[in-house]
Each structure stands twice: as structure tokens, then as C-alpha cells.
């Protein structure tokens, strides 16, 4: 059975801290891995990763994929209270090329002032 597991499930940090969120997966026919940020509304897209070892960056956020060890990490440096959200990892894969996303449970990040 295809699965995506995120850790930790929740995290509380203070502003200025650096955090690392983990996503491991066991998915047949892996095609890509996506990170989303969800505040009190719909998930919004952060990154899509398809190749190992190539870091994607957007401001204080960065992510990298390891297709050999089947995991990805999302780093957030110099955290701010606006980073408080649920971070979702999802993998595109499975037996048919339908773009279905298999989601992890999410990591709830709280950044305290």
C-alpha cells in the first residue's frame, strides 16, 4: 500500500529558530513530491521535487529530495509567526498516470513570538 509519513506531527518553536520537517514515502512508480502550506484555508503550493539532490529555495524555505532513501525535508530558517501552519507533503505516483496525490498526515508548526 502506498504511504507518505511526515514527522514530527507537531512542532512548537520560537521566532528566529530553524526547523526541519521530514517526509518519507513508499509509493509505487514515484513521479514527484510536493510540499504545500495550509493556514486556515486551502493548501497553497510551495515546491515540487522530481530529482534527487537538487535543492529548491524560496526565501527562507528550502527543500530537497532523496530518491534513494525515499524522503524529503523542508527547511525553514529564521522562522516568523506567519510561518505557523500545517505543512503537507504529497507524492505523485501509483499505477496510473493520473496525477493523484498521496498525502501525509501533515506537520503542524506553531511559531511563538
Amino acid at each position, binding site marked *: 500500500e502506498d504511504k507518505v509519513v511526515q514527522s514530527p506531527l507537531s512542532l512548537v518553536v520560537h521566532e528566529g529558530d530553524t526547523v526541519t520537517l521530514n517526509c518519507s514515502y513508499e509509493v509505487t512508480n514515484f513521479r514527484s513530491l510536493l510540499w504545500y502550506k495550509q493556514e486556515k484555508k486551502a493548501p497553497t*503550493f510551495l515546491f515540487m521535487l522530481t530529482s534527487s539532490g537538487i535543492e529548491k529555495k524560496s526565501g527562507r524555505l528550502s527543500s530537497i529530495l532523496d530518491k534513494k532513501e525515499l524522503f524529503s525535508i523542508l527547511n525553514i530558517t529564521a522562522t516568523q509567526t506567519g510561518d505557523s501552519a500545517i505543512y503537507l507533503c504529497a507524492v505523485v505516483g501509483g499505477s496510473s498516470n493520473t496525477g*493523484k496525490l498521496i*498525502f501525509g498526515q501533515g506537520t503542524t508548526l506553531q511559531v511563538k513570538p
Partner: protein
Amino acid sequence: DAGITQSPRYKITETGRQVTLMCHQTWSHSYMFWYRQDLGHGLRLIYYSAAADITDKGEVPDGYVVSRSKTENFPLTLESATRSQTSVYFCASSRGGGSYNEQFFGPGTRLTVL
């Protein structure tokens, strides 16, 4: 440019009633998806559609029905609502179904079944 919209945003219904959640997108995306989000389970795929008149089951399809007569609309119907269907429902769309097409999400519908 409205993007992807869902209606209603909030709905309270009773066990056994039929409920339809609407999803509309203005991008002419081929693929559309319905997810439910519950604490501890993340987002789970209910149904998806690759094009008008083409639909397929996702991970948790039981108790739900979908149709897609037009590319822009993808309604989700709960034929006889149960308390276990209390959840937040998200509709999403993507340009294609392959590996490289990110999904865009609607604002969600919070459904409570009493």
C-alpha cells in the same frame, strides 16, 4: 479571475439527507479532484476526474457520488449523509494528470452531519 471556487462554504445537515457540494474552476483544467480532510488523516482522495464524463474512485469513495458533465464543474454528492462524513472537503484541479502538474485547491467546504 475566480480560479477555483466551492459552495457552500459551510453546511449543516442531518443523517440520511442528500447533500451536494459544488466545485467550479475557471482555468479549463482537465483534472479535478475531491479530498476530505480529517484530523489525523491528512487529505484523502475521494474521487477524481480526468476530463468531462470521465471519473474514477480514489482512496475513500464509499458513500459519495460524482459527475462531470462540463469541464468546469465537478459536484460531489453524499447520497445519504452519515456522521462519519463530517469533514472539511476540498476540491482541486490541475492542468494535466502527469507528474509535473501541481494541483490548485479551492477554499474548502466544512460539512457537519448531525
